[in-house]
């Protein structure tokens, strides 16, 4: 096959040969007839030159025409291919995104529900607060689920239905009676007794994608008809008829833009808005618009109108809550009105629709007048379109915006607790499962505890900073609160600002624990057969490490106290005495016990470990103290109870997991000692110190860290206070962390520790460890294995036992 140019050259040669032949023919003819020769010689000449010119132009023209045709053909072919490829790309992109987002249901995380039964210790005000947290509203008629009515000593409520782990509980009306801060009766609508019922649990978060979008997915059946019709009326009147874009809309927008000289208006349909929302861009260019239109057309071709409208309702951006973007009406309803979408009134639906046009501009919290004006225009449109009746319109127009700026808007949001939920689940579920499978996660969190603890942390730090003239915001804190018997985490505070998703100090701040570690030494000593009355030396000591380094510990006040009983050494947190005790039982043995109780070996292998030169996080310390608070059982603090799939089937249940770690009588004895720490030692400044609580304070070197770990009958709490830059705070465990713990218990008080009456309790003098009686000053009651071996404090009226008298005879 010839190259086109070669072909063209060959064709040219053929043409030339024909011309020459024709010229020769004409020459021969003119030579033969003489008359013709004279007549037309001049004309022939002209004709010859004209013929020559025409052929050349004609040929050139034809050639150009052919070339142009070829060029067009190739260009068209190329453009078609590119267009098809781009169309395919757009189709793939938008369809994949739509399908992915449509079924991408973030896992929902629930707190523990409040149990309601006769005998439950909760007063009416607290229950109202709890209902308010769940978005219940006061309504004398209890017309709809999510309402309550307080009347005298009773509170009636219309509970929302909920799918619990064990099954569904439909919505129902309940009457609760109170007496002396306790529920004394729970009745159904027909006055029959209800022995046990629970509130619906608070939604405390969901696992939304890393770019911060959160949503609560609604199915088409869950979308209120007024919302669907209202959206169409306001945002896209021709939604049911168009094929993804509206020419009239675009022309109108173009006209407005041309007149204003800016790109002020977009003629987007709901489908186009949906496309725009998927790709997170507000860029206003014609290129983007074209792409948007193309994608909208593709979506319309591929999916039904109902699918598209539902996707829009679940997708549209409705505001920002810190780092969390509020997407969709499901979550928007919780965020702005603190209730589920099916409970929204007409004016509330109109408010939500009004926000779409500009979530920032029409933010009802920041710009209520603007939002109200737009809401009322929307209500007028509802009326004009026959979506609502005149009385409903009047009623709605007269209603306030009704948005609630409660801390629980958008579902209670506890990022610090969510961190541990995420960590626990990461062992069993992938991140994509959590973000897309619609899992339902039931957790151990008690919102009341969480809110109370967070409030105590924030207010106490502010108070301390003010009192000590420290820079505002310089102090930080963290806390973990667990159930003493099950080890379940009831609250977790990651920093002084609860709703900020930042560095989680409760899980990740590993700091020297100071004296809170000392109970491990005492436990080892008790297990080795020593007693609370055993004398230890609070005298100067210098120890040499293997590398020859000298270590000379000191007491916090720099003083020494000589011989004193073990209980006093622990209660007063005397460093020298505790080092002496540690040396008596050996560092290796103390560290072995530490490993048993925490599940990991300490990092510090030197005697400074005795004084808490060991970094731990508040969560790790909680695990250690859980052994004491539970009565001798090791539990790993846990946050997840169960995970259900979207159909309500259990995927995993996380049962109680405990292992006996300390003998019951030994741990009972240790806990008595920790109670004395509170009543007579470093915890005595606490207003609860003599109310049956056990605990230990801790302070690290240079007052960098302030710790408190303590428990009552039902709750174990660990509190840390320090600075993020690890500089000195000037606080001890008592003046920092313990104050926070005190404030955590101001409103609810403490639940005193219940003792086993079989404890071998003996009264001893706190200062000397001698056997004494209550009539003597400074006496503590504590289990002693061999009370008959104790020396007796004279003048206390303690009579020697027969054995003691025999022994004294023998000794003499």
């Amino acid at each position, binding site marked *: 096959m010839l190259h086109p140019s070669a072909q063209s050259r060959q064709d040219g040669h053929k043409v030339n040969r024909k011309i020459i032949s024709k010229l020769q023919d004409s020459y021969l003819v003119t030579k033969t007839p003489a008359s013709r020769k004279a007549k037309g010689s001049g004309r022939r000449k002209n004709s010859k030159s004209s013929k020559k010119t025409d052929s050349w132009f004609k040929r050139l023209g034809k050639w150009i025409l052919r070339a142009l045709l070829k060029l067009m053909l190739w260009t068209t072919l190329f453009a078609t291919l590119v267009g098809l490829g781009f169309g395919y790309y757009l189709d793939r992109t938008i369809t994949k995104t739509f399908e992915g987002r449509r079924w991408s249901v973030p896992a929902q995380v629930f707190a*523990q529900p409040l*149990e309601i*039964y*006769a*005998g*439950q210790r909760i007063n009416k005000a607290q229950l109202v607060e709890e209902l308010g947290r769940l978005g219940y509203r006061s309504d004398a008629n209890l017309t709809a689920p999510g309402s309550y009515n307080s009347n005298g000593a009773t509170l009636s409520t219309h509970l929302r239905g909920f799918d619990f*782990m*064990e099954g569904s509980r439909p919505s129902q009306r309940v009457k609760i009676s109170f007496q002396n801060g306790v529920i004394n009766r729970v009745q159904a609508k027909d006055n029959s007794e209800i*022995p*046990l019922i629970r509130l619906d649990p608070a939604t405390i978060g969901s696992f939304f994608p890393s770019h911060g979008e959160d949503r609560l997915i609604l199915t088409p059946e869950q979308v209120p008809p007024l919302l669907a019709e209202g959206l169409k009326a306001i945002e896209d009147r021709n939604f049911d008829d168009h094929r993804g874009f509206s020419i009239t809309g675009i022309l109108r927008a173009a006209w407005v833009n041309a007149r204003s000289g800016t790109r002020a208006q977009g003629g987007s349909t709901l489908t186009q808005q949906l496309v725009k929302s998927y790709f997170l861009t507000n860029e206003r260019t014609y290129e983007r618009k074209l792409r948007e239109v193309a994608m909208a057309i593709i979506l319309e071709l591929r999916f039904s109108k109902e699918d598209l409208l539902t996707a829009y309702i679940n997708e549209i951006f409705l505001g920002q809550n810190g780092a969390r973007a509020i997407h969709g009406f499901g979550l928007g309803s919780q965020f702005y009105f603190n209730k589920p979408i099916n409970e929204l009134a007409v004016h509330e639906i109109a408010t939500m629709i009004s926000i779409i046009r500009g979530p920032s501009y029409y933010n009802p919290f920041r710009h209520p007048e603007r939002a109200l004006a737009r809401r009322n225009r929307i209500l007028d449109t509802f009326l004009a379109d026959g979506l609502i009746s005149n009385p409903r319109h009047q009623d709605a127009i007269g209603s306030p915006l009704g948005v609630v700026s409660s801390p629980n808007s958008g579902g209670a949001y506890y990022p610090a607790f969510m961190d541990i939920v995420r960590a626990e689940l990461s062992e069993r579920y992938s991140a994509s499962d959590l973000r897309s499978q619609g899992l339902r996660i039931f957790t151990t969190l008690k919102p009341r505890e969480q809110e109370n603890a967070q409030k105590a942390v924030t207010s106490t730090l502010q108070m301390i900073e003010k009192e000590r003239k420290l820079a505002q915001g310089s102090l930080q804190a963290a806390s973990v609160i667990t*159930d*003493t*018997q*099950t080890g*379940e985490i009831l609250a977790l505070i990651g920093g002084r600002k609860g709703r900020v998703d930042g560095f989680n100090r409760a899980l990740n701040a590993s700091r020297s624990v100071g004296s809170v570690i000392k109970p491990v030494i005492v436990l080892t000593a008790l297990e080795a057969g020593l007693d609370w009355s055993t004398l230890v030396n609070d005298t100067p000591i210098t120890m040499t490490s293997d590398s020859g380094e000298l270590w000379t510990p000191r007491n916090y006040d720099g003083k020494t106290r000589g011989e004193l009983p073990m209980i006093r050494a622990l209660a007063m947190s005397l460093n020298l005495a505790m080092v002496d005790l540690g040396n008596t039982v050996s560092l290796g043995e103390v560290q072995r016990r530490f490993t048993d109780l925490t599940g990991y070996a300490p990092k510090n292998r030197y005697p400074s470990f005795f004084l808490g030169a060991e970094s731990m996080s508040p969560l790790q310390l909680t695990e250690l103290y859980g052994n004491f608070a539970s*009565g*001798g*059982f090791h539990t790993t603090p846990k946050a997840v*109870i*169960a995970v259900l799939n979207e159909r309500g089937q259990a995927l995993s*249940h996380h*049962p*109680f*997991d*405990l*292992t*006996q770690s300390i003998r*019951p009588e030994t741990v009972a004895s240790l806990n008595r000692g920790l109670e004395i720490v509170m009543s007579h030692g470093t915890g005595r400044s606490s207003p609860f110190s003599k109310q049956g609580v056990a605990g230990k304070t801790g302070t690290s070197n240079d007052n960098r860290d302030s710790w408190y770990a303590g428990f009552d*009958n*039902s709750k174990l709490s660990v509190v840390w206070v320090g600075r993020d830059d690890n500089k000195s705070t000037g606080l001890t465990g008592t003046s920092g962390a313990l104050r926070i713990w005190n404030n955590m218990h101001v409103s609810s008080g403490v639940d005193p520790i*219940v003792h*086993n*009456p*079989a404890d071998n309790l003996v009264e001893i003098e706190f200062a000397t460890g001698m056997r004494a009686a209550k009539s003597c000053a400074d006496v503590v009651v504590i289990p002693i294995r061999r009370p008959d071996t104790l020396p007796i404090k004279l003048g206390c009226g303690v009579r020697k036992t027969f*054995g003691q008298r*025999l022994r004294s*005879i*023998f000794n003499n």
Partner: protein
Amino acid sequence: MNIKLCISLLCIIFIGGCAGNQGPSASDSRASSGQSRTAENSNKPAAPPKPAKIKPAPPKNSAAKILLAQADTALTQQAPAQAIVLLERAIRIDPREALLWIRLSRAHLAQGHTQAASQHARKAIALAGSDAVKTGQAWLQMADVLEAQGERQQAASLRRRYARYAG
């Protein structure tokens, strides 16, 4: 000197005698007395009357009591997983009730989780405290766990010791 020596020898004998009598705790002594009564009865010509079953006091907390009853139903219906969920809920309400932990141990045992069953039985023993009936039932539950773990002798020994509390 001789007098002192005699006194101290007497003392040693006395203390030694006391040490030899260590053993049954309050609950144990009740258990042994129960056994001796059974032995006495067996000598009588007539068939011994069946000792009345000793039932532990139900949970004081009304909610825990209801959940315990539901869990017992679930256990009889061979639904230990459901029983575990109910019992854990009950324990969240009343965490120091030994009976709930005994049943939780039973539910785990029914599921073949002997390790969990053993630890929950221990928890029940620790919480039962001075309640002899609950202590006895907790030990009997431990006997069941031990048997499932292949420790038949220990299980039998515990059953003999706490037979009186068999429900």
